[in-house]
């Protein structure tokens, strides 16, 4: 059993997941805000913009990730300097996760009671003040739950970047385990177990954090 490789894969997976999650949230969060406020009943209605943005997001979300990686290769090369390897794989991960996160964030914002937003409006809040002081703070628990889901999804996707020579514990489970035949299956199982553990940790952290942050629980 090559434990050193599993450890290396674990670190690479963490790097890819954290980088992709952070960048995807930086992009997806504003998109989620835009999706919510430009709705017909939103605080800054812009139905046409909303429809176009929604269509683009749905389009990106409908492409299977493995195909997206392949189709993005020229773009990845242009942006990251190379299309192959662990760092390069962050780019397709971000492209795939951003629209997903935009939807997850949108859902969280939609859970905020419309009456509260109306009250903020009635108090003379600007659109920015409503976003920063009402919409985001009021949906924090739900945003955290969503983030745990999004990070879990990104983590699962990192396994697929083995297709473009990306590293990570999931990729090694395939390339250094499965593809090398039955003799290396135990490596595949061990690497997969690490992934399962990582997902558990993220999920449990998400649940606990949500509970701690939610002041609607007595």
């Amino acid at each position, binding site marked *: 059993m090559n434990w050193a490789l599993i450890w290396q894969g674990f670190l690479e997976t963490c790097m890819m997941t954290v980088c992709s999650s952070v960048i995807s949230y930086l992009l997806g969060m504003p998109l989620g805000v835009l999706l919510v406020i430009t709705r017909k009943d939103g605080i800054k209605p812009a139905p046409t913009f909303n429809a176009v943005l929604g269509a683009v997001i749905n389009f990106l979300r409908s492409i299977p990730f493995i195909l997206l990686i392949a189709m993005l290769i020229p773009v990845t090369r242009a942006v990251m300097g190379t299309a192959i390897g662990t760092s390069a794989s962050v780019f397709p991960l971000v492209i795939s996760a951003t629209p997903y996160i935009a939807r997850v964030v949108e859902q969280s914002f939609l859970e905020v*009671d419309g*009456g*509260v937003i*109306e*009250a*903020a*409006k*009635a*108090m*003379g*809040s*600007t659109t920015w*003040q409503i976003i920063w*002081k*009402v919409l985001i*703070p*009021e949906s*924090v*628990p739900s945003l955290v739950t969503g983030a745990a889901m999004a990070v879990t999804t990104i983590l699962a996707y990192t396994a697929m970047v083995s297709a473009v020579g990306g590293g990570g514990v999931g990729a090694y489970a395939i390339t250094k385990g499965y593809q090398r035949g039955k003799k290396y299956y135990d490596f595949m199982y061990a690497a997969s177990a690490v992934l399962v553990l990582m997902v558990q940790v993220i999920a449990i952290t998400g649940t606990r954090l949500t509970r701690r*942050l*939610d*002041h*609607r*629980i*007595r």
Partner: protein
Amino acid sequence: MHLSKNAPLIEVKNLRKVYQVPGGEVVALDGINLSIEKGQIYGIIGMSGAGKSTLIRCMNRLDTPTDGQILIDGQNILAMNEKQLMITRRKVSMIFQQFNLLMQKTVARNVRYPLEIAGVPKAKANQRVKELLKIVELEDKADAYPIQLSGGQRQRVAIARALASDPEVLLCDEATSALDPMTTQSILALLQDINKRLGITVVLITHEMAVIRQICSRVAILDGGKIAEEGTVDDVFVHTRSAAGKRLFGIVPSQQDDTAIEIPALRIVFDEGKESQPIIAELVRDCGVNVNILSADIKRINGKSYGQMLIETPSDEDTKKQVMAYLTRQGLTVKEVDPV
């Protein structure tokens, strides 16, 4: 604010609100004219669907009317741009049926919100929050979250929050409808107190008669998007003219409809706030007649009795005259009603 002495604080002129719905339109407000003076507690009452919620929501432009004018301090809020509207909204506060508090923020942070968005320095804002919580008697709940409070306490927080921006007007959108009767009483008392002590004009909408009776000085009855009648609360209660008003006050048609009387009767109207009980008792004692009460519909408003009573007309002409004279002397309106 530059108010000439009798200029109304809020003036609603020919207000119309039409909703476009699939297959047509719904007229929610149909030519509303209202004039609300500074310092009043003005009640707007109506059945659900009468348009009262739409009306009050137009007063701070949470709803945009289709046509008409709303003048606050002489300025038409419907002609304002976003920025002007924002400033006006800080002078026209609102509380809601469902309180609409920020659930992830403490009581103190909720009350501080209007001060934060207005850019009040933190220390000054915190000081003001303390004062406001004192007004609503929730100083000890400053660090609690809304979920830990009862409905009445939540509405008190909402009131404190509404007062933070030093408003001239407080709009109450069914503010007591989600509360039990006891709590309703305490919230109404608080609103009355705020009106008296801080001179804030209160506009409230409700479907509950008791709310109007208890604290309002003037009332408008809204029915089908129109004002059915309007006046001082005392007047509207005693001389209810509109069908909508009679329906709301629970005046059964037979009690007012003279044709429904089966035997000759005398209608006694208590419109000066006289106590009904002693008067009938004294009538029996002083005139030595038996009084047969056919029906009575007496309501207590601001501690006085209003309403009317039907008593059987004494068969003896002299006794009848004696009774009528006695009641007239007591300052009551007496009218003979003939059976069908």
